[in-house]
């Protein structure tokens, strides 16, 4: 049954090849199908051994208490993107394959299989990154991602050499003090590239700022969440991250530089791109500490960051040269998302930062809280600036409307009406997500209970191993 989460998107992707335009219409239904399956027909603690090969020899798909909530979140984001983004026909098929690959990477319990899914995600990511004639940005990503993918392959093969299997659970039995750090370094390089931690994440600003309503959502939200899951699985569940302080320092440096980068940008797209780097770097820095409360807070932070950036990037894609005067719904969603990113009270972002700071103080960690607070001040600076600029912007649209009225008054026939610049679907989705941030702001327990449960499960390797062993050796 759990294989349907991979198989159904793939079947529809192939079905959409002869009829290209169908792909984008299939996408919301496939995402909805996955969500219905997850909510009503699937439950955590399921394992599927592909071809009935025991987990140690074959590929095992594992649905546990960690992958289950991540799958729900990612498929929800895919559904939202399919409703809000302006999809060209050819992107429908690609995004269906992406859906299969992100579901696959979160379900698989096999290192090589996860490499294959990672490469499928990467190839689609390069194509999506090239949207809006952005081949140069996509090529930069391809070079960084190519190196990252190679390192992941080396890590997977190293696991096989030392454990005799590619299964993730069995890999945890590798105890050689020389080999484990080497394997972890290979994997870590991949994650630093894909999770955009500077300097290896330098490809991101060029890619995310291309003005597409697909690229930053697909890569910055959907792919990022699935890779944070894989990062957690490998470094919190299976292996111990070697030298976590170094990873933490790297991520903290990334936060500072990305925030300064965001502050310096003249364009909103690049500013948001750097802000995304900062958000994910904060999550990586927090996860590297391997502590239950901090991990939970990091997932809460991830939730807020991904939802907020979803709104901001979607509206940025439709803004063009216009402001919010004539589209207040979009403006309200944008402002709510900005306030949540900054951590303003009554928004999800406030609790994300509160839980993270509280958990860090409890373990006497002060460097990361200081950086988070400084980053919040910088974020407040440039996001408020952009909000003010967009709310008070003199719009060409007003002039357009006056022109239209003037033409009508002059009796010109077939005058083109000025349409809202944000499509109805995008308006509904962004407003819905903005309201979600407010609701979570008032009821943080809705998310916090879930993130706490994920954190407790991800830091406890035993249930995962038991689930794999239940399938038999």
């Amino acid at each position, binding site marked *: 049954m759990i294989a349907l989460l991979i198989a159904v998107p793939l079947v529809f992707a192939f079905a959409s090849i002869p009829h290209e335009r169908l792909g984008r219409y299939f996408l919301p239904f496939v995402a909805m199908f996955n969500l219905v399956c997850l909510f009503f027909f699937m439950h955590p603690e399921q394992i599927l051994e592909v071809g009935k090969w025991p987990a140690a020899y074959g590929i095992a798909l594992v649905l546990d208490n960690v992958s289950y909530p991540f799958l729900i979140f990612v498929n929800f984001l895919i559904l939202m993107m399919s409703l809000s983004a302006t999809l060209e026909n050819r992107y429908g098929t690609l995004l269906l394959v992406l859906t299969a690959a992100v579901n696959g990477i979160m379900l698989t319990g096999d290192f090589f299989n996860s490499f294959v899914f990672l490469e499928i995600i*990467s190839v689609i990511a390069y194509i999506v990154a090239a949207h809006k004639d952005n*081949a140069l940005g996509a*090529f930069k990503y391809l070079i960084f991602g*190519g190196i990252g993918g190679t390192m992941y392959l080396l890590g997977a*093969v190293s696991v096989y050499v030392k454990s005799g299997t590619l299964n993730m659970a069995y890999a945890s039995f590798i105890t050689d003090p020389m080999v484990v750090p080497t394997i972890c370094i290979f994997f870590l390089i991949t994650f630093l590239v894909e999770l955009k931690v500077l300097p290896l994440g330098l490809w991101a600003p060029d890619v995310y700022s291309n003005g597409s309503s697909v690229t930053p959502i697909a890569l910055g939200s959907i792919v990022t969440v699935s890779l944070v899951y894989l990062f957690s699985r490998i470094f919190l569940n299976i292996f111990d991250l070697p030298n976590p302080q170094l990873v933490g320092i790297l991520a903290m440096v990334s936060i500072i530089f990305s925030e300064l980068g965001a502050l310096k940008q003249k364009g909103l797209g690049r500013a948001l791109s750097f802000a995304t780097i900062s958000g994910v770097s904060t999550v990586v820095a927090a996860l590297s500490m391997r502590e239950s409360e901090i991990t939970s807070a990091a997932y809460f932070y991830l939730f807020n960051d991904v939802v907020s950036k979803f709104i901001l990037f979607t509206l940025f894609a439709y803004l063009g040269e216009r402001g919010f005067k004539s589209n207040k719904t979009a403006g309200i969603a944008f402002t709510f998302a900005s306030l949540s990113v900054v951590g303003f009270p009554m928004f999800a972002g406030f609790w994300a930062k509160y839980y993270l700071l509280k958990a860090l103080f409890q373990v006497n960690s002060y460097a990361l809280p200081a950086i988070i607070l400084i980053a919040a001040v910088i974020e407040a600076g440039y996001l408020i600036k952009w909000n003010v600029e967009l709310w008070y912007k003199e719009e060409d649209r007003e002039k357009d409307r006056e022109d239209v009225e003037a033409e009508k008054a002059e009796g010109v026939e077939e005058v083109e009406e000025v349409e809202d610049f944000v499509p109805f679907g995008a308006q509904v989705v962004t407003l819905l997500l903005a309201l979600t941030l407010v609701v979570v702001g008032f009821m943080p327990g809705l998310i916090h209970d879930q993130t706490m449960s994920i954190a407790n499960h991800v830091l406890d390797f035993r249930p995962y191993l038991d689930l794999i062993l239940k399938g038999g050796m």
Partner: protein
Amino acid sequence: MSNIIYYVSFIILGIGIYGIVSQKNLFKQLISLSIIDTAVNIFIVALGYVEWGEAPIYSTITPVANFVDPLPQALVLTAIVIGVGILALGSVLLVHINEKYGSLDPDEIRDTREVVE
């Protein structure tokens, strides 16, 4: 013997990394990435090598005990396919870049962008 292959693969890996770091031309960077892929593939195949080993195919004339490890070979086949796909995609992107900026040199591309902006 197998150790030599490891060294060779790491030397090729080093050449690939040097190429990416030192070459400005985007096409040369893509080729360097391909060299890295090849080096890793050689390394993985070498891992499954067994001295005087046989092809891992069960038959009446093949001794059962001395097969080379087939799994790295299977992994490399997949990795090669993925590598070729990425190389092809990278080449397509380079064609687009060349059509847009008239060059694959980052400095010239930057100059063209500044003129356009």
